[in-house]
């Protein structure tokens, strides 16, 4: 039995076999020529044969899929043996280019053509690049890129997962996620929590475990055990037995002594919102509006936006829905708003700041929100991302007022906003802590980088101190203005049951998370009193480091281990 430590990011104890995610297909070098002993005819025949295999594989997958996924796979399968694509590749082969490089270049020019056509065609541009990578993999005799296919469920091992991988990740086939790279805030972690899959990141050495090996994964403790024994079998069984209890939330977030902490959901569209309402969410604490804008070359119309927002509001009649205005930039670039050539996008024109370089988009969005809010029964609050100063907060509040929005607020993600929360909150009604970015900025550590995972955790006492300062600032601003200015948390931190208790102890009034985590957070919260939570918050703040803070708090919450959280 051998143990492999990592960082646990999504709870669950499970035993299964490992399947490795193939490495992405590397670009054949520019100018790569046909091998001396290969004729263009042989190369063209090899290309056509490889394309035929890819076509058949995609067609088989299409036969097993359903709905929209099936239609996309059918079209993608046809692209693999498309005459236009293959003809332009063969032309390059006849001019002496290697088959791999030829299909790479032919795919690039077709993809660009589709991209320039915009709309539906532009969405298909990525499919042709996928087909191209599959053909090159086939020519090289290496596994096809993407999540492996298997008849039996498996534990997926990868270096890291990209947002695009979510689309093809079938939760019925994947038991758990383990990555060698990535941090607690990486896409892998976010994907795993939203799908309710056990996951751990930064598990160095996991790539050396052979495909098909049986392992035990504990996504809370952050542990992979090779050749699991009776102890692990028992733990996995206990988790399976507990799972039912941890998936039901009664829609009433509270501590043991009745201190109410509404538990809200983070959603990205109407589908999420409906699912969150079904899971008992008491409202929405973060409605990300990017889905309306991403993969678009132009701004959607006010009518289109308004209809999309209303669809989310309608899932929560009579309840609170906190909408975040467009948060473009950094890892979410938008061609009509952000500058892709910025040397340091995380510190660039992103979030609220895009209103300085492209004025008008935010005002039109606020107008669409006000229109949707007026037509729905939800209690709509609106907040701006990446606010750094009190002046920005005041200006955002006046933009909201002009659009007819009653409850403006700000995201606290930049340390300056936390440090000056008293004045930032004077002109707005509430604040919501985005702990992912707040941690990245407080620790100067990129969220996506595996080697920085230890820095990049909201358990860092410095981050907890910023949360505390935000609450203190809100108390000052409330006293000064005579209006209560609540501070919520909508980052990944709220989904960690132990940290959720600490946040409540620090004075946070609502917690918003991926809907899958609601039941686990509620189950732990109701085992502590507000005074217990405050004591745990003091303990965490006094820790010399993140690891100690987490360990000390967890040691005082034995319920976590009982539930496998």
């Amino acid at each position, binding site marked *: 039995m051998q143990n492999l430590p990592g960082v646990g990011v999504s709870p669950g104890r499970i035993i299964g076999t490992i399947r490795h995610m193939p490495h992405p297909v590397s670009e054949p070098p520019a100018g790569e020529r046909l091998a001396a002993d290969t004729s263009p005819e042989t190369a063209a025949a090899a290309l056509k044969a490889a394309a035929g295999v890819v076509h058949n594989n995609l067609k088989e997958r299409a036969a097993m899929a359903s709905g929209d996924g099936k*239609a996309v796979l*059918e*079209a993608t399968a046809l692209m693999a043996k498309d*005459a236009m*694509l293959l003809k332009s590749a063969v032309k390059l082969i006849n001019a002496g280019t290697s088959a791999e490089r030829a299909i790479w270049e032919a795919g690039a020019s077709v993809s660009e053509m589709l991209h320039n056509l915009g709309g*539906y*065609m532009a969405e298909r541009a990525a499919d042709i690049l996928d087909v191209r990578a599959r053909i090159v993999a086939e020519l090289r005799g290496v596994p096809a890129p993407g999540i492996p296919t298997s008849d039996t469920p498996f534990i997926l091992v990868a270096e890291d997962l990209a947002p695009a991988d979510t689309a093809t990740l079938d939760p019925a086939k994947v038991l758990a996620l383990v990555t060698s790279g990535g941090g607690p805030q990486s896409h892998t972690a976010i994907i795993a929590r939203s799908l309710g899959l056990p996951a751990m990141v930064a598990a160095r050495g996991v790539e050396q475990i052979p495909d098909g090996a049986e392992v035990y994964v504990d996504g809370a403790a952050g542990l992979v055990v090779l050749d699991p024994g009776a102890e692990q079998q028992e733990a996995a069984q206990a988790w399976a037995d507990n799972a039912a209890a941890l998936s039901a939330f009664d829609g009433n977030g509270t501590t043991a002594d009745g201190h109410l902490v509404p538990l809200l959901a983070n959603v990205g569209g109407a589908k999420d919102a409906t699912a969150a309402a079904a899971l008992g969410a008491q409202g929405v604490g973060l409605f990300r509006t990017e889905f309306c804008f991403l993969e678009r070359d132009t701004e959607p119309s006010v009518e289109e936006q308004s209809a999309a927002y209303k669809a989310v509001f309608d899932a929560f009649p009579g309840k609170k829905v906190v909408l975040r205005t467009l948060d473009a930039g950094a890892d979410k670039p938008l061609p009509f708003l952000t500058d892709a050539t910025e040397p340091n996008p995380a510190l660039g024109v992103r979030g609220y700041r895009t209103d300085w370089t492209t004025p008008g988009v935010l005002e039109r969005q606020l107008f669409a929100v006000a229109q949707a809010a007026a037509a729905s029964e939800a209690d709509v609050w609106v907040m701006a991302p990446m606010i750094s100063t009190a002046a920005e907060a005041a200006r955002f509040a006046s933009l909201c007022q002009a659009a007819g929005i009653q409850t403006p607020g700000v995201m606290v993600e930049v340390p300056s906003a936390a440090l000056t929360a008293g004045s930032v909150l004077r002109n707005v009604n509430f604040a919501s802590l985005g702990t992912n970015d707040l941690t990245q900025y407080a620790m100067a550590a990129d969220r996506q980088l595996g080697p920085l995972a230890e820095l990049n955790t909201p358990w860092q006492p410095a981050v907890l101190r910023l949360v505390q300062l935000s609450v203190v600032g809100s108390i000052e601003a409330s006293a000064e203005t005579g209006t209560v200015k609540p501070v919520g948390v909508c980052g990944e931190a709220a989904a960690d049951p132990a940290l959720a208790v600490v946040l409540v102890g620090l004075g946070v009034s609502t917690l918003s998370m991926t809907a899958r985590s609601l039941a686990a957070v509620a189950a732990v919260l109701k085992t502590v009193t507000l005074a217990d939570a405050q004591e745990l918050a003091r303990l965490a703040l006094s820790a010399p480091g993140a690891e100690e803070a987490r360990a000390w708090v967890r040691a005082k919450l034995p319920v976590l281990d009982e539930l496998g959280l």
Partner: protein
Amino acid sequence: MPERTATIASRSGLHARPAALFAEAAGEQPVEVTIAKVGEPEDDAVDAASILSLMTLGAERGDVVVLRAEGDGADAALDALVTLLETDLDAV
């Protein structure tokens, strides 16, 4: 050369699923079939069996296109494909 005109009936135009169904059917014909928007020169016609060519053609619902083919079975092939274009494939 035998040719036919047809009006695109599919709601989403000649892309997405309708394009896939049409390209597949065109590929199954015994003759090579080309497609162009009506009024465009014959030289600009593209391979009807290529889904990528169909997508770049950008034919929307209501657009009129010209199908051309030559050789044995050309007429039957064109008739079959016209029927397909004039069916709302999004509803199938």
